[in-house]
């Protein structure tokens, strides 16, 4: 759950990029790091697995102010490999929203599905099954990519899918922008943020678009 400090007028959101191994979660964070204005983000922290360390995640802090309120967004990736289940759970705990980065390669269908099932099981275990999840199909530049109409929508035929090519930065910001907005609206319903902070969803989204520093055209979204 987000940390809200009404006295300090500060809101911290925690977002997690989840998905099968090598689907491009870290590429998403690298692209975000490159696109967000440097005064609105910290260093990208990457913790690798080395020797017997069962660690592997990235953290990108993003922060901006609006209406005398400061917003901080901590964006994490989780390790995709099944063996890092415990680390994945630790990183996922208390998250406010998830980007599920699926792989567009046809031979990764099963891996996508397994990772999705793992995600939903873990969210249920943490009683986080109501938080927003945005699905992104990455690697849309692959010649043999699965056509978007045939992509697995994980049990919800109406689910909106974001297309991305994270290594080139395409589609990364719209995915992020949608998740942050959805996470805000989810929290607003639970904590009445608009009333208590005096910042409504539109104002928040505008501030986000302004500070994240790129145009949100959504052209890659379907």
């Amino acid at each position, binding site marked *: *759950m987000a*940390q809200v400090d009404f006295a300090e007028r500060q809101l*911290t959101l*925690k977002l997690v990029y989840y998905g099968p191994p090598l689907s491009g979660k870290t590429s998403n964070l690298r692209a975000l790091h490159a696109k967000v204005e440097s005064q*609105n983000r*910290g*260093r990208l*922290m990457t*913790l690798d697995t080395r020797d017997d*360390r*069962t*660690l592997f*995640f990235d*953290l990108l*802090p993003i*922060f901006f102010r609006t209406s005398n309120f*400061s917003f*901080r967004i*901590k964006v*994490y990736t989780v390790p995709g490999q099944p063996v890092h289940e*415990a*680390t994945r*759970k*630790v*990183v996922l*705990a*208390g*998250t406010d929203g998830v980007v599920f980065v699926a792989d567009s390669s046809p031979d990764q269908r099963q891996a996508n599905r397994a990772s999705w099932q793992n995600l939903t099981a873990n969210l249920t275990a*943490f009683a986080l099954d109501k938080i927003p999840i945005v699905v992104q199909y990455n690697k849309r530049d692959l010649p043999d990519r699965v056509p978007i109409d045939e992509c697995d929508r994980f049990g919800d035929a109406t689910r909106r899918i974001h297309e991305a090519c994270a290594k080139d930065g395409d589609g990364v910001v719209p995915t992020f922008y949608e998740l942050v907005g959805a996470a805000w609206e989810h929290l607003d319903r639970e904590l009445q943020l608009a009333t208590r902070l005096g910042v409504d969803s539109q104002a928040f989204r505008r501030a986000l678009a302004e500070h994240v520093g790129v145009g949100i055209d959504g052209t890659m979204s379907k």
Partner: protein
Amino acid sequence: MSGGLLDAPIELARLVPPGELEELIAVTRRALGGELAIFDPKGTRLAGSEAAGSPRRRIDHDGEPLAQLAASGPSAEAALELLAGTLGLLAHHANARELAATTHEEAMRLTFGELTEHNERLERAVARLEELDRLKSNFLATMSHELRTPLTSVIGYTEMIVEGLAGPVSGEQKEYLTTILGKADQLLGLITSVLDVASLESGPLALDRAALSLTELVATEVALFTAQAGRRGIAIQLDAQPGCTVLGDRKKIRQIVSSLLSNAVKFTPDRGHVGVAVRPGPLSPHEMEAGSAVQLVVSDSGIGISRELVAKIFEPFFQVDSSSTRAFGGTGLGLTLAKAYVEAHGGRIWVDTAPGQGSTFVATFPAGEGRS
């Protein structure tokens, strides 16, 4: 697990030891001169000299105040710049180390917790299974006893009628009564076997040991089977060396011999042959010492057993071929009991066989208490 594990606020004093801050100041002073000091965001001096003056440069980390800096001297501005940049990097890496350690520790705790829970579930399941197994053995023992008791009356009274104690019996009646007696005996044998297997599973086997001649015991049992085998044209050839003695439980050893003989005769086709030998030999097939045991060898010219099934034939209720249950009868308990009894005597039992080539069962009993 609560959220926020990875959200501890950045605190310079926690992340970077004071010694390292002093070292950083010393290095910067050597390069640029002047006096320097590092303060926390609230203005408490963490390192450096009072002579550096009041804090006049604030540095943030990821949008949060990290420290304040003071510097005096001609290169004060350059020193502040260098110090700010270096402190930012130090804090970033220290924070990464801290996050890594915390995550690792939490992941280990989580894994350990899950394993402990899993283990407890398994332990409960094992305890439940053990309880069920005990209940099953008790049930079998009780039921076998309850079934045997009325059967004793059936057999006893039938015998009395056959013997004419209840009045004259016609030839036809006698024939029917003999069939009843035969089947009742068969049923009694079956119930006894079930009772024996149940008692095997309920605890260790008690043996009533005495020195006995295996040569004579086998000869007696062979004589009992000769008539039955003869009706099907099966010849039983006995080759028992005299003086083969074992220290054993007569009843149990008789059951072993009877099981092996019955098995051999049952699975040998009409006009086949069965060989029985008693002789000194090694205790197990891998042992070379020829006289370490007394061997009972029963071979037949029966259907034989495939390699995959050999491992299973000593398991309770196992039949090589399910259709053979009807063709040959039997409970599938004889070899299970024979194995348990042989092993209780410290011996071994094994079979040398192949499909279509008959089988040779060898049961051994340790010598010493063996050959006289």
